């Protein structure tokens, strides 16, 4: 009898403990992003104000953007994160693979108010960024005029850095080989087109230094390891503005993309996650990021909220769309991404 009572008390205590544990959890939101200047900007524009407004504590984690980490969490049923920032192609892959939750837009905001392609089934857009060319004019005497100058080793000898990923590089390779931006994805969908792109990349393969993390291009330029590099525009602008580097950005032939955020399947705190998504998707909040890193808003009605001094530096500012540019085709990369990544990795290793 006594034993039974003791175990009852123990049970009650344990239950109370679990309840307290869950209550504490409800006020926490765990977000995994890809680090660097971009995560700093999100902290200032969104994490901190959201925390202040709702009293939710935000726990930050960093990763390289590899879906494997998220898959391992979902597969083992132990998902310690509630939100994860991802690339568009990764959203499609993760959506098909059942790693990411299908989003309920009624809890986020009007889906038709997002730029086309930035509100997907399993991921909602955070910002628009440009894949651009950056160089250091104190090193490179002649100024490149287009991202495609990456392929001109005669005029611009020396190492150049490019992202260790087929997306963007294959598009640029075709454009450098004379394909019009409007036809790039049509050509790339054929086996001959893929061969053609890799053949063009072959011509500069020995001159390429490959980067993985978004912070690397600025470092590679600063250490003069390379004379030019492809990069995400915000990271380079950050090096110019914050670290006072003399770098220059070439916008001609840039590729426009969207950063996304998603909820991994089995996240412990979906309510808080949705609250956060709704918060950052408000046009006035969506525009705030631009003041901290030069990435544009994805809400069509957010432009008027962007700070005046940030506007001319955004990838989708009118000046930066004056030359040629390409909007990354999310669906193309969803369909062909896996095979092209495989081919690209084999090509790299050879």
């Amino acid at each position, binding site marked *: 009898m006594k034993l039974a009572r003791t175990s009852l008390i123990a049970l009650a205590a344990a239950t109370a403990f679990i309840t307290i544990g869950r209550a504490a959890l409800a006020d926490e939101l765990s977000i995994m992003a890809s680090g660097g200047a971009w995560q700093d900007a999100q902290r200032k524009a969104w994490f901190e104000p959201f925390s202040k407004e709702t009293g939710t504590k935000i726990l930050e984690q960093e990763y390289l953007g*590899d*879906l*494997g*980490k998220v*898959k391992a969490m979902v597969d083992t049923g132990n998902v310690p994160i509630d939100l994860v920032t991802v690339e568009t192609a990764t959203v499609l892959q993760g959506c*098909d*693979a*059942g790693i990411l939750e299908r989003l309920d837009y009624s809890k986020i905001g009007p889906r038709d108010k997002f730029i086309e392609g930035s509100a997907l089934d399993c991921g909602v857009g955070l910002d628009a960024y440009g894949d651009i060319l950056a160089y250091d004019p104190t090193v490179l005497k002649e100024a490149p005029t287009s991202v495609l100058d990456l392929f001109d080793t005669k005029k611009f000898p020396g*190492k150049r850095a490019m992202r*260790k990923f087929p997306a963007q590089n294959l598009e640029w390779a075709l454009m450098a080989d004379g394909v019009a931006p409007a036809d790039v994805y049509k050509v790339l969908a054929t086996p001959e087109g893929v061969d053609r792109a890799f053949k063009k990349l072959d011509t500069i393969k020995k001159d*390429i*230094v*490959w980067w993985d993390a978004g912070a690397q291009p600025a470092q590679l330029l600063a*250490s*003069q*390891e390379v004379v030019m590099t492809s990069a995400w525009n915000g990271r380079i602008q950050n090096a110019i503005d914050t670290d006072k580097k003399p770098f220059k950005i070439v916008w001609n032939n840039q590729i426009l993309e969207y950063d996304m955020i998603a909820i991994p399947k089995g996240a412990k705190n979906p309510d808080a996650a949705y609250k956060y998504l709704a918060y950052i998707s408000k046009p006035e909040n969506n525009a705030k990021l631009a003041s901290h890193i030069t990435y544009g808003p994805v809400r069509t009605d957010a432009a008027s909220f962007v700070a005046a001094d940030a506007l001319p530096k955004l990838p989708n500012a009118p000046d930066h769309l004056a030359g040629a540019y390409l909007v990354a085709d999310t669906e193309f990369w969803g*369909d*062909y991404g*896996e*095979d092209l*990544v*495989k*081919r690209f*990795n*084999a*090509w*790299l*290793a*050879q």
Partner: protein
Amino acid sequence: MSALQPSELDRPALARGRSAADTDQKSVSAALRRAEFGDRLRTLALAAPLLLLLALSFGIPIVLLLSRAVYDPTIANALPRTSQALGDWNGQGQPDDAAFTALAADLRDNQAKGTGYELAKALNARLPGARSQVLKTVRQLEGGGDKPPLEVMKSVPFWSAPGTWPAIANGTHSITSFYLLSALDLRWNADGSLERVPPEQAIFLQVFLRTFFVAAAVTLATLLLGFPLAYLISSVPKGLAAILIVAVLLPFWTSILVRTAAWTVLLQKFGLVNDLLLWLGFASERLDLMYSRIGLIIAMTHIQLPFTLLPIYSVMRTIAPSQMKAAYSLGAMPFTAFRRVYLPQVFPGVMAGCLLTFILCLGYYITPALIGGASDQLISNFIANYVNVELNWEMAAALSFILLVFTLALFGIFARILGLDRLKMV
């Protein structure tokens, strides 16, 4: 005639005595064995927690992971109707319409259960391009209206292409050699013989060779640097030897990541090494040491040096200097004395150090990732890529398995040549 000839006196008695002694001896050795057995049991019991920990945290997970290289039930589980319909297919040409209908039903089933993607991915690993075809076909099946499933299947050319059905039939067997063969750049031909994969897909043999080459180069470099240094340390007075040992060990106590990062600072274009080479006049322009094979070997040599040096040093320390002196006094030239007296004795230490370094080099991951270029990535980088990025753990397991087999084979050859008992570790 001697009365003391026992053989003639009492043979049976002697025999009795001997057998008694034998029995005694037997019982003694039996008792000894029992005691030893008890000892062994106690030792085993003491080591049991460790063994259990090893088995649970190391052995079982490794076996489970490696088993993924040959056991992949994804397709078999996802296509039960199709595998049944394919039961009596002879593998020639196209299977009958029943197989097409069964596949259509299985595809719709998977879509409904949410396992469509896993299936598409598993098929895609064997049949390049299958992923988008599966998803496309499912979309048509779901939204095709009143079009019969068989017609939909026949209208997608992919399902009637040669090679599609043999691959599916192969996939319905849960035990597969597909991944292990892929790890060796091989595959089954349509007519059932082995063939090499097309050159634009063939990477792994090249990467395995590269891994062994880099490991051998680093082992040789550490030996060339480590041997004289070990000799120096073993021949100087104790105090100085202690300082030298600490100098060797100091970097050894630093994390491998930090040391690799330090090398990126030294090796970069405007780094110290390039500054020094220019200043000394060894180079006329700045060299590309970062993201190159040579930079990778330099950094790995630095990290591995203590592993080669310490076993050599520990053996050298045990060789009395008087032996060399004795050799000289018997008329041996210094080189002869070194070759015939010194070298045979330090040889086990040299081999132990080299083996340790070689095997550790086979698993290098961080250093090639940070210092090597795209064509300097070793097999571990590919394994990591399959685990983290491509989510293809079967392929990662197959590559790990091949690496393990190669390593064990090398170890076996080595043990055969030298004898494991002669290996001297620190």
